[in-house]
């Protein structure tokens, strides 16, 4: 028997997020043609995202919409999902791997008494009605394979580990659900401000990007960091940095990739003037393709990279930006 799956998707700037499309694809392959796939969106301003969700292999879409939900706490989200799960008779809940939804995974599993894993890069049903999940651990230096017992499983997927769902017709019905009042244990309830965007470059965010270009101390001075930003812009990539750069204050801490910064796993990671210290490497080694540009042929980054250019970044990077702009028809 194939499981019925609930996908809790997310909208970013009103559009369905890339990782939500990926989760819908995984849901459909788990459910096959027997199991039912329900898409769920919680928040505000969800018209476009829910319409898209309805065409991505779902059997139905449910929308819990309320202006107050844009700053909902995780316990409120968990209560809403738990109520939907009850009504939809699902056995698997898939979540995107965003910061907030990974937190939701733990809450929901505790509330629903489900088995749970986050950061999944492989997923398949087991004989006993559970799931077998693989997930990178130790910063991608090893993979952990878990058997999650059924009949209730909650899994948050790692962004970009799966292809997105393709469009299907006809669109599934979209049902609006009332947002029930959810009292919290705390009195008074926490006050959560509106999200302040840190997308300074206007490009994709680090965690969500399919390409990341990071710069290190090899850039020598903060004003040179624009070389990295221009390369990133030509690729439509997010910008990252080593700790040498964030510690020196050339760029804010939110740029930092590594053990004490963000872990990223894009399709392509380009390291510019970064030596490849282990604390940096653990944050990017799960990237599918790694390119290093460094003047020192002995730099450890070349041991984890797939492709390398040994040379002066001040010459190579502008040439690379120019070439990419050319092939992408940008200039």
């Amino acid at each position, binding site marked *: 028997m194939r499981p019925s799956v609930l996908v809790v998707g997310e909208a970013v700037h009103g559009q369905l997020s890339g990782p939500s499309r990926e989760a819908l694809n995984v849901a459909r392959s788990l459910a096959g043609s027997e199991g039912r796939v329900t898409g769920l969106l919680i928040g505000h301003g969800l018209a476009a995202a829910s319409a898209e969700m309805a065409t991505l292999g779902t059997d139905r879409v449910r929308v819990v919409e309320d202006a107050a939900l844009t700053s909902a706490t995780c316990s409120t989200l968990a209560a809403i999902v738990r109520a939907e799960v009850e009504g939809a008779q699902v056995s698997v809940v898939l979540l995107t791997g965003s910061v907030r939804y990974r937190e939701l995974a733990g809450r929901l599993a505790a509330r629903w008494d489900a088995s749970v894993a986050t950061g999944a890069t492989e997923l398949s049903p087991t004989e006993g009605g559970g799931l077998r999940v693989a997930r990178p651990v*130790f910063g991608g230096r090893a993979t952990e*394979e878990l058997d999650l017992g059924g009949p209730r499983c909650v899994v948050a997927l790692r962004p970009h580990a799966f292809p997105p769902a393709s469009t299907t017709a006809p669109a599934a019905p979209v049902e609006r659900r009332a947002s029930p009042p959810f009292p919290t244990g*705390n009195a008074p309830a926490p006050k959560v*401000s509106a*999200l302040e965007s840190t997308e300074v470059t206007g490009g994709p965010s680090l965690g969500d990007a399919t390409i990341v270009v990071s710069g290190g101390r090899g850039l020598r001075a903060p004003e040179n960091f624009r070389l990295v930003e221009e390369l990133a812009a030509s690729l439509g990539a997010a910008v990252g940095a080593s700790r040498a750069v964030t510690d020196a204050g050339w760029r804010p801490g939110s740029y930092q990739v590594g*053990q004490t910064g963000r872990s990223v796993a894009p399709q392509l990671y380009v390291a510019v003037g970064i030596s490849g210290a282990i604390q940096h490497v653990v944050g990017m080694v799960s990237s599918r393709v790694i390119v290093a540009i460094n003047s020192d042929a002995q730099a450890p980054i070349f041991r984890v990279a797939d492709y390398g250019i040994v040379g002066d970044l001040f010459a190579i990077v502008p040439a690379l930006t120019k070439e990419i702009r050319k092939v992408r028809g940008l200039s």
Partner: protein
Amino acid sequence: MEIVVLVKPVPDAESRLRPNAGGTELDGEGIKWVLSGYDESAVEQALLLKAAVPGSSVRCISFGPAPRTEEVLRASVALGCDRATWVERPVGMPADPLLCARVLREALRKYPHDLILAGKQAGDDEEGIVPSALAELLGVESFGSVVDLRWHAEEKRFRFQCVLDSGSEKVEAAGPLLIGLQQAWNDPRTATLPNILRSRKATIDRLPWSDVAPLLGAFSAGRTTSQRFRLPPPRTGARLIDYQSPEEAAEKLVKILREEAKVFP
């Protein structure tokens, strides 16, 4: 303020990872166990709050096997935690985050807590499940990826920021509260030698598994039925691009990225 910090031992970043024959566990040799990085920040933040709020105390708690769990608790005491509780986990039991959360809930029944701090995720499995699952079981609000955590005594509220994927939120909330910490105000301190020596004699409160398991009933087995590790195929080192000019290097790399690696059209 009564502060509880959840801590976990993890292999340090330079440890050699080698699964045993069945892949069920990592070979203990070559692994140096240390306090998980974000947990270090959580301990640091707890100690900073303790110093800022008179009459506070900090207890660290860990659920894990001997001897590493006791060692990281001692390390936390050496950093300045007042008390430590070790809930013993039988060796060889698959690590199950929900089981861990349920065990910690039982342990927490004994201790008053206005604030529970944890690292936002562990340095080894990177799951980040235990804090929010525990908060759910305790019926308290929780926030992850937190920076800049402050206590405002006049309003009896915590104020902090949550760093999300594309921005950050400012939050004000009353305790009891569970916080998954991303960063303390300071880099984590290191323990002084006299404190390390003193921590060796410190009393660690023990909760044996045989006392905890009956409290969990049907949950004592966990929901994860097996756990195996495998290593990715070793990266063979970069293919270096031959070139005469920067333009040639750029052209060759872009061709490879498009045609061979297929990372962009």
